[in-house]
């Protein structure tokens, strides 16, 4: 193995190891641990979005739909029928795949902004439906995951935040492995070909529609799985947060684009920056200026795209290249 290859395996392994050890010194009920949980969750969500948004540059602004479908499916099945979220999660994933399939039929033929707008609208449709279908979802007041501390792991509920933390860590590693597997496969190359030049991809025999569809389904299913984990972590949510444009959809895209779209460590970097930043903003500014974080997201997104569309990861890379050159000199 070359030094670069050793480093490319050792570095993420070290990060994961640090993440395994990190919570041991923290208060298992504490605020810091909850922030770390959200960081891991949003990193995983970004990574799921990265499969289609990053590799193929299909900028979806409607991924909240899959996230919410996952959260509502397992929660309703658990609340109404006592079905374990461990099973409900798969129902949510299947429904999200179905939604992605129906959404993809018309939207995957759209390019650029049109695709982004269509997916944005689809996410909003999901939110409106969840708000109005009160008999199923509970409507705008939200829905609670029934508290069953006695049921143990079957109910996917825990006394402390620590097991949730490791669930999120496992999910983040899993989704990252899926992304890495896709990225390095022929399928991943086809997605990249679509991003770099869709016409060229078509004329060399890439079925661009099918490739995009498969990536969208995979991305949707993983996002739904994370929706269930989020529901089991929060115990309560409502349509406006779980299907939110700014709270979920845009945040997923922003984390990836800020970190580095189409790159394995893009969402890692993006989530490590965005989530703590957001928490700090919320605790210092509170709710004094409503909607400020949404505004901040928009500004941040524009700044990143204007100054450095390759994301923060490219700063590390140019720093690394400079060090290499200095070593050689």
């Amino acid at each position, binding site marked *: 193995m070359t030094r670069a290859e050793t480093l490319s395996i050792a570095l993420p392994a070290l990060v994961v190891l640090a993440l395994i050890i990190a919570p041991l010194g923290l208060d298992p009920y504490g605020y810091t641990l909850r922030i770390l949980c959200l960081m891991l969750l949003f990193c995983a969500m970004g990574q799921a979005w990265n499969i289609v948004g990053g590799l193929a540059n299909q900028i979806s602004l409607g991924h909240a739909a899959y996230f919410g479908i996952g959260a509502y499916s397992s929660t309703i099945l658990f609340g109404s029928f006592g079905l374990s979220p461990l099973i409900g999660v798969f129902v949510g994933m299947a429904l999200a795949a179905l939604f992605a399939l129906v959404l993809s039929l018309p939207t995957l033929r759209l390019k650029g902004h049109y695709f982004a707008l269509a997916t944005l609208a689809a996410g909003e449709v999901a939110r409106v439906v969840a708000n109005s279908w009160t008999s199923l979802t509970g409507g705008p007041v939200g829905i609670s995951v029934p508290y069953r501390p006695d049921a143990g792991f079957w109910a996917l509920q825990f006394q402390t935040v620590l097991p949730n933390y490791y669930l999120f860590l496992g999910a983040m590693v899993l989704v990252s492995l899926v992304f890495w597997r896709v990225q390095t496969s022929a399928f991943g190359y086809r997605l*990249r070909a679509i991003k*770099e030049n869709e016409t060229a991809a*078509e004329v060399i*025999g890439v079925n661009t529609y099918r490739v995009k569809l498969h990536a969208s389904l995979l991305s949707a299913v993983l996002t739904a799985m994370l929706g269930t984990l989020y529901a089991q972590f929060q115990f309560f949510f409502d349509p406006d947060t779980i299907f939110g444009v700014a709270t979920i959809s845009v945040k997923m895209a922003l984390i990836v684009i800020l970190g580095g779209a189409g790159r394995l460590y893009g969402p890692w970097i993006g989530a490590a920056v965005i989530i703590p930043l957001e928490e700090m903003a919320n605790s210092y500014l509170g709710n004094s200026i409503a909607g400020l974080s949404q505004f901040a997201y928009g500004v941040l997104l524009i700044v990143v795209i204007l100054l450095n569309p390759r994301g923060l990861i490219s700063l590390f890379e140019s720093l690394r290249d400079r060090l290499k050159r200095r070593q050689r000199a």
Partner: protein
Amino acid sequence: MQATASHTDVLLEIGELTAGYGAQPVLHGISLHVARHEFVAVIGANTAGKSTLLRAISGLLPQCRGRIAFEGRDLTRMKAHQIAGLGIAHVPEGRHVFPEMTVEENLRMGAFSHADRGAVQQALERVFELFPRLKERRAQYAGSMSGGEQQMVAVGRGMMLEPKLLILDEPSLGLAPMVVEEMHQRFLDIHRSGVTVLLVEQNVSLALHSAERAYVMASGAIEIEGSARELLHDDRIRKAYLGI
């Protein structure tokens, strides 16, 4: 003037093709044919519809009426990727490479129709033989190369398909004269190796020196058809396109 294709093996046959992008068709009842192992050029002014014709053949146009048959199979209802699978390699106008992939990755992308690695490797070696420069630059990002080199990548990627028909859309556009000359030598090499070539080219003199037969297009229709040698001496063409 009307050449008959009855006794030759027709690879591509287009009949009464009307096609375009929206309500207004760009092509008005085009008929042409390309025999197997032939080198055919389509020449004409900038807005004659030459590129549109090629896009219609390879399935990149939304609207198409008429007949396009490749080895007897109807192409008008097929998608671009299916048409590529039949052995038609289209090198689009404007050097459509994958800029953030290396030269070798670009070429390998062209070979997804090959089942096994051995066949891909062989195709790769053949492309490197054709364009030794690409072998030297195999690890370089395609987007960082010169225009001529990018055109080599685009043509080489098409050749990775081991096509029966190679479609070249304005391959010399924006390239230095020396590079253009060299590129056309490679097209002749490709043709000699048994590949049928359909070339659209603004450089009429060059096209007529490379091709065996040519069609002249104007305003979305075929105006003149003939052997390249004949057309080179045709007064209408000498006046209109060669400036003699």
